[in-house]
């Protein structure tokens, strides 16, 4: 099954690069959604032989939340907002992609340093998951719109879920669902906060949130 896993990992890397280069918020949300759906298939692809019920259920919830519910919440929010694209991010799109490539190379190096102890795992899991995490962190710090920062948080979550998928079999379903519930609540609360920011400031530029210093 490693072939499928490798494909998923390559897809993760490609979507990350796309996110780094996109300016339209709607497109960003959709790419993050596709990334979530593909990620939801990872636990199934990692499993050898029959698929146990709890794994199928976990995958279904993962795809449902990250592929459908989160994007739906964010797209609805986008409709309320007056803004459609990220204007003048702190780091330009070309530079972002170049930095992303450099980050990916260091993630591959890191993957060699930290091999998964379990035998037979795809060698791409660790670099691709790390790269997704780095992309998420980068998006949260380098973009001005609160909505893009929330998308960055989602991408970060995706990267962590990729690690989680590698270990999900040994962990009880309840915890995995609890983690997803938290992610859901986080997106929900962030959505409300963005709505308030939009109303209070007439825009969602988080860099205008700067009256509190030292």
């Amino acid at each position, binding site marked *: 099954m490693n072939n499928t896993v490798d494909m998923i990992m390559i897809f993760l890397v490609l979507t990350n690069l796309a996110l780094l280069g996109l300016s339209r918020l709607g497109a960003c949300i959709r790419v993050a959604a596709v990334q979530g759906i593909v990620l939801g298939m990872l636990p199934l692809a990692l499993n050898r032989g029959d698929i146990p019920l709890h794994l199928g259920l976990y995958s279904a919830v993962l795809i449902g939340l990250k592929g459908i519910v989160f994007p739906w919440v964010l797209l609805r929010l986008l409709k309320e907002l007056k803004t459609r694209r990220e204007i003048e991010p702190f780091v330009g799109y070309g530079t972002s992609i170049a930095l992303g490539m450099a980050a990916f190379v260091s993630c591959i190096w890191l993957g060699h340093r930290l091999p998964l102890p379990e035998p037979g795992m795809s060698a791409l899991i660790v670099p691709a998951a790390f790269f997704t995490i780095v992309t998420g962190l980068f998006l949260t710090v380098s973009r001005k719109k609160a909505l893009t920062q929330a998308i960055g948080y989602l991408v970060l979550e995706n990267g962590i879920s990729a690690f989680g998928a590698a*270990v999900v079999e040994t962990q009880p379903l309840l915890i995995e669902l609890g983690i997803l519930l938290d992610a859901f*609540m986080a997106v929900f609360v962030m959505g409300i*906060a963005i709505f308030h920011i939009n109303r209070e400031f007439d825009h969602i530029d988080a860099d205008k949130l700067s009256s509190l210093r030292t």
Partner: protein
Amino acid sequence: MNTIIYVLLFVPAASAVLTLIVGGALVRRTILIAAAGCHTAGTLLAWHTNPGPLLNGWMMLDEPGLLFLTITSVLFLACSVYAFGYLGRESGSEKQDNEEGFLFTNAPEVVFCTCLPAFLTTMTIVTVSQHLGLLWVAMEATTLVSAPLIYFHRHHRSLEAAWKYLLICSVGIALALLGNFFIVIAAAGFPSDDKTMVLSVLLRQAEHLNPPWLKAAFLLCLVGYGTKMGLAPLHTWLPDAHSEAPSVISALLSGALLNCAFLGILRSYQVCMAAGLTLFCQELLVLFGLLSMGWAAVFILGQPDYKRMLAYSSVEHVGIMALGVGLGAGAVFGSMLHAVNHSLAKAMLFMAAGNILAFYKTKTTARVSGVLTSIPMTGVLWLAGFLAITGVPPFGLFLSEFTIVKSMIEQGKIGLGVVFLGILALIFIGMASAFVHMAQGEKNKELRADRGPEPALAILPPMALGAAALMLGLYVPSALGRLLNAAAVLLGGN
């Protein structure tokens, strides 16, 4: 009596739902106090009954858990009494902003009264959980239910603070989740099939954990939960949230929530100790601890806003706690005692700061003077709180800081001790100049005219907390001493 944990979880959760359903401001506030009272009574009962493991060992009150649960519960009780009076004063229509003069409204009181017990529920889960995954889920939930509390005053500054808190803490805690997954990956080599993240299972088979993955896991947990705990340089959300939230919420964030985040770090530290990585973790804890203290000292000196000063003082004290655990030996006991003392003193100070803010309508230190003559009770509390928080004898913080310094000298780390005392002295000077200026000076006549005497509900809770902080400096009750000792032993002290 194992059901006591269920009671501790059920009471605040049920009251959170109840406040949503019932109408009437007074009823909601009464429910809040009743829930807090029941929770504290349940916690006291847990001291006597030693509730055993529940749900396959997922929940248990071990010594560190019981210690932090007690702090949280007592603080919450004091805060709910204070909040009863506070909500009464805050109700009503539009308010004028103290800093910029625009008009704003508060969030509906029902949001406050629902989020507060929900916050207690999630913090209780943090203290009773023995499963690292459950601990993480509860920790993230604390962020989500407390963010609306920070945005209680609906204006742009508190919104900014709430957004920073939400985003920085969520990202930080996401890293801690990664750390938890790394622990599971490190556990791949366990001989038995039992690979769940229950603490006792991990501790039992710790020698089979994969060291490189475990090291990475500890680093991520330290950074992740450290963000929430307010360790420098990850503390950036903390001064904003503490200064913009209502004072009673600041008291809870500082006194209860930071300790809960510390517990998250301590749990991963326990696993690392069992796996023989003690030295690696201790060095990191000492480094972050010292950095936090130094960072706080820089920002406390000349800090123009007294609530922000208290927030930076929290950064200093979580630094001392991390430092104490990192030193090992006797300092771990000091660190545990410090957690108790700091919570009591800091909550007392935030409540007093709330009274000052309500009277003077400003958070700027320079524009407040004569607190002792204008509002004498608060003035006395403010000065007593200053002495307590800077570790002047006979307050409890002196005892705990002294224990930590003593341990440094015993370990031959004289240089570290000198740096530690130097930073404490700097902070003392920085805080003294602000506190003395505020307490002394001319009585403000025009402010006094339209206000009655200080409300009892705003004075009694901080007074009780201050009395407890004073008592702990003179005499540590034997039951508490035993608990602190047992917790310290579990965390590598003696």
